[in-house]
């Protein structure tokens, strides 16, 4: 596979991003590891190349562009701002017990676009931009909306602690559903016997007592009604062409009034896409799409995948990540939405023209 060929396609995409008003930026390849590790945890350590610098400490070969671009914007940018970039990212491919005959690339190009704006049109602008660039490839576009799911979770008749636990684990489907099961039953009494061991470690006795008190208070909580769980599961399972999904969501909003606002925001976004000439029937809406993406996508999410190539990663992915800017901004948050395209995969599909 020719590197100049991929580069040329990357440049083509970059030109389209520039034409959409973006300023090109070039974040470092070697990034301080601490921020990325704190954000993504061990998942990123498993995927990224981490190495040691005698002065700077742990550093990481750029596993994605979003974090350095957000940091750069928060230091000296003003909204609205549009940035684009083209460069390599590095990801270890640890395949488990068996090594595949053709290992996936551990170094590949990403061309990206990030938009920082308080404008309601931002979601549609980014999605339509990607849709337009990738149109010649006839990819399958899928869209999700984490806002909807989170609003539905917030609407459950639960204590604040239980609600926070569910929201925290919304990106981990197994743990989330175990929590739902637990909250659906009367909590079994637990006895916390003093093990007679001396206290050791940094976690304090007060921290443990606080959790035990929470578990005991939790026993007084009424179980989650079965119909609440069923409604939530129906929402999470919505998966259809966008117009049909919207109709289903509007119907669900009749039963979960707290998602009505999010459903209407989605409806407005979709009509903006239609106004930009996109045939909504070709977009698949999958309510749970964002649960399988990066933890910090917390609004619209999207991906463009190659039909018939389930073994390929998506050609493009993106979404809204306000939560990420909130974490990186130390209290300051900026609405942000963006995405990346993999020029290497575009090249394998024969290019954009």
């Amino acid at each position, binding site marked *: 596979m020719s590197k100049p060929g991929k580069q040329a396609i990357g440049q083509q995409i970059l030109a389209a991003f520039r034409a959409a008003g973006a300023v090109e930026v070039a974040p470092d390849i070697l990034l301080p590891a601490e921020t990325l590790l704190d954000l993504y*945890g061990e998942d990123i350590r*498993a995927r990224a190349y981490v190495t040691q610098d005698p002065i700077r400490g742990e550093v990481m070969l750029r596993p994605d562009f979003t974090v350095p671009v957000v940091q750069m914007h928060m230091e000296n940018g003003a909204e609205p701002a549009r940035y684009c970039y083209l460069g390599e990212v590095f990801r270890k491919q640890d395949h488990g*017990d068996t*090594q595949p005959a053709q290992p996936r690339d551990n170094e590949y190009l990403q061309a990206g676009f990030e938009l920082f704006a308080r404008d309601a049109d931002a979601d549609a602008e980014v999605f339509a931009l990607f849709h337009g660039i990738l149109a010649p490839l006839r990819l399958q576009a899928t869209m999700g909306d984490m806002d909807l799911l989170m609003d539905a979770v917030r609407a459950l008749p639960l204590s604040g602690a239980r609600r926070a636990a569910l929201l925290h684990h919304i990106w981990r489907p197994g743990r989330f559903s175990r929590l739902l099961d637990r909250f659906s039953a009367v909590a079994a009494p637990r006895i*916390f*016997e003093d093990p007679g061991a001396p206290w*050791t470690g940094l976690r304090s006795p007060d921290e*443990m007592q606080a959790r035990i008190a929470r578990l005991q208070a939790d026993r007084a909580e009424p179980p989650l009604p079965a119909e609440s769980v069923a409604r939530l599961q129906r929402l999470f399972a919505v998966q259809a062409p966008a117009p049909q999904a919207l109709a289903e969501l509007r119907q669900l909003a009749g039963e979960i009034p707290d998602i009505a606002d999010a459903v209407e925001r989605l409806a407005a976004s979709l009509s903006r896409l239609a106004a930009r000439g996109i045939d909504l029937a070709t977009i698949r809406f999958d309510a749970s799409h964002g649960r399988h993406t990066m933890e910090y996508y917390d609004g619209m999410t999207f991906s463009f995948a190659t039909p018939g190539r389930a073994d390929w990663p998506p050609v493009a992915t993106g979404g809204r990540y306000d939560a990420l800017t909130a974490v990186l901004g130390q209290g300051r948050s900026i609405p942000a939405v963006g995405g990346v395209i993999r020029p290497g995969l575009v090249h394998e599909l024969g290019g954009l023209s």
Partner: protein
Amino acid sequence: MIRLGVPSKGRLMEQSFDWFAARGVTLSRAGSDREYAGRVEGAENVALVLLSAGEIPRELRAGRIHLGVTGIDLIREKLAGWRSHVEEVAPMGFGHADLILAVPACWSDCEDLDDFATIARDFRAAHGFRLRIATKYHRLVRAWLSAGEVADYQLVDSQGATEGTVANQTAEAIADITSSGATLRANHLKVIAAEPILRSQAVLFRSLAAGDEGEVRAFAARLGL
């Protein structure tokens, strides 16, 4: 000539020698105790290579030895895609040890992985950094916690005296190999989760890269395998 890799010292070496002796092949160190050369009696065309147990996975993968004795834990930790590089010839029935996750015994609210996940989340909120697990088995522990969908933790490297890291406050929990659990108890730690991360024992592995399969099979047959 088949090259057979065996741990170069300690109980693992002695038990390996006993295991082969019980199958009619006598292995011994050549010359003095300090020399890492070996002798083989009872089989033709076999050379004994004495190696540190931790290096045997790498040598098997590279095909520099045809057969090697080492723990399942070391193979799985050190060889990504291990099934593509080695084949288990025979479990040897010694060197039993479990890779486990242990927390302070004083944590009476921590009985299983669900408790652990919640404690990790609380800890991160209270202390501003992820709960630290000291280990040298990074890949195995991370894969296991990822399968259990535990977030809010980080691994810190510990190549020795891992049980001491909790008292020293350089980690909140540990993941390590244990056989009797005595060291854990002495350091006021307890094992959580009913099933260990991995049950390990010494296994005779065959290198897929070394080739000479016919000769290796003949030797295995000589051992009654």
